[in-house]
């Protein structure tokens, strides 16, 4: 083999211990496992009789069916593509386990009634609730997202400004940091009762609460980042002709970027908490409110549906944040290979 055209993939394979026939067989069985587990899940759902008056529809069946076909497709592609194979081989045991968990839950609720309604609706019921209410749910999701991002971005921008100003000027830091130290440790949700009374609109109040938490974590992270810049970098930049403005924007802020992004991530989780609490306590829209509202009607399936939706939204938001972070910090050791 020519050394020049050796790919990373090939090198890693060369360095790994050679696989026996049995190893390869195990690999493919494991890769196929999710499909088997999914099929088991379907069989359990359709073949076992339901408990008493419990009913089921095809929604869950179709849902599981779609996921099984995705795994089947991945399995077929894995013969051609090494990357797909490696991913599938790594993830397959876990997803098989998830299918088993779903089967067990279905068995305990729909089939045997060990876990009773209304608190434990089976997955099919939750899916149906989500579908029947999707218009309303998506409206609530939209309102939640508007609230979340309005609060998050205003808090983040103000936090950056405060943090940079404090890191830049000792005078500003003198006046501002005691307040941060005093008010910072109080969870921002503490202020909800007061804010809801004082603020003109509940939306503004909720934005304020969300922004407060984000502002705090971003400010602290930015100050920490900027104050830890090694003096050598400033010296080097000065001898290269940087003005004090350029020292801040060209040296201090990039240097503090890992800290700032850490603060932004932390701010996001505090924003999500504040959002839910604010919606449950006062704001009359959004997913948090929807959950509370459905709970008061004992519509637990709808409530679970909303929780699943929240989960999905937060996963996506955090994933996007992680991608942005990885892109900005590509210069850090260990990020670029």
């Amino acid at each position, binding site marked *: 083999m020519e050394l020049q055209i050796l790919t990373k993939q090939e090198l890693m394979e060369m360095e790994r211990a050679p696989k026996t026939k049995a190893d390869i067989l195990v690999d493919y069985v494991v890769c196929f496992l999710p499909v088997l587990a999914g099929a088991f899940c379907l069989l359990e759902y359709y073949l076992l009789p339901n408990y008493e008056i419990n009913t089921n529809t095809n929604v869950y069946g179709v849902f599981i069916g779609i996921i099984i076909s995705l795994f089947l497709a991945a399995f077929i592609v894995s013969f051609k593509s090494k990357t797909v194979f490696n991913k599938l081989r790594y993830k397959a045991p876990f997803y098989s386990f998830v299918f088993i968990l779903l089967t067990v839950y279905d068995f305990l609720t729909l089939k045997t009634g060990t876990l009773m309604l209304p608190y434990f609706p089976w997955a099919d019921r939750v899916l149906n609730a989500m579908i029947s209410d999707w218009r309303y749910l998506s409206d609530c999701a939209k309102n939640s997202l508007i609230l979340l991002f309005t609060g998050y971005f205003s808090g983040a921008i103000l936090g950056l400004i405060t943090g940079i100003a404090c890191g830049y000027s000792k005078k500003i830091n003198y006046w501002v940091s005691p307040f941060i130290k005093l008010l910072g440790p109080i969870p921002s949700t503490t202020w909800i009762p007061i804010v809801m009374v004082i603020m003109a609109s509940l939306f503004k109040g909720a934005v304020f609460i969300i922004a407060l938490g984000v502002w705090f974590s971003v400010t602290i992270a930015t100050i920490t980042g900027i104050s830890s810049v090694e003096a*050598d970098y400033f010296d080097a930049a*000065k001898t290269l*002709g940087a003005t004090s403005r350029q020292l801040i924007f060209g040296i201090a802020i*990039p240097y503090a970027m890992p800290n700032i992004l850490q603060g932004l991530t932390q701010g996001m989780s505090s924003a999500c908490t504040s959002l839910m609490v604010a919606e449950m306590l006062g704001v009359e829209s959004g997913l948090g409110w929807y959950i509370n509202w459905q709970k008061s009607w004992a519509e637990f399936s709808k409530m679970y549906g909303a929780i699943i939706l929240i989960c999905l939204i937060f996963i996506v938001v955090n994933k996007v944040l992680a991608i942005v972070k990885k892109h900005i910090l590509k210069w850090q050791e260990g990020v670029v290979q």
Partner: protein
Amino acid sequence: MTESILVLDNVSKSFARTDADAITHALDSINLTVRQGEFVSVVGPSGCGKSTLLRLIAGLIYPTTGEIKLDKEKVEGANPDRGMVFQKPTLFPWLTVRENVAYSLKVQKKYNDEKDEVDRLISKVGLDEFKDSYPHQLSGGMAQRVSLIRTMINKPRVCLLDEPLGALDAFTRMNMQDELLNMWRENSQITVMVTHDVDEAIYMSNRVIVMAPRPGRIRECIDINLEYPRNRLSDNFVSYRREILGMLDFGKKEA
């Protein structure tokens, strides 16, 4: 272009200590004149204010008394005209090699006119392949080369080298001594280098300044009258070495 001249007139520097109610006298009445085309090395035991001397010339700190003048102009604050290379490469980790080298041009808004110079210098030190690498991907020697051209791109009138090769292994070090000498010959800028290595000082400079500690002062200036490139094993080289090492030992005994 007129010949540059750097003059230190009776320069002293004292620091207020943070750990005690006292002051440290880092440098005491330094008088020094360096002309264009001169390569001066500063050697001496640690604590004799070598680095302080460079930082004063760079304008990163101000003298307590006395004056530093470059071409009759008083030195005030840092300026790319007085470039400095540090012992640590201090490359900005968030910029690629190319961006690091271009940094100085960019902050001075000269980048568009001198873009080609960036690439020319990078190939000159043989780092074409690493243009788009980040500093953590470079070896110590490569990083220090980048740091060197990052400073040299300004064609400074004065080049200050604060133990630039101190952290490198012996082979890289000897190679880079020659690279540094080439750069100096090409631009013939005033060069002041602090080093711990007497051998390096004799190999590279026209003049070696031996300093003594507490307070830092100039003990002796020794002109090195040898042709470049110098032979480290020649009799003259060895006798300079003996002379300077003797002085440094003598300094220790006295302190």
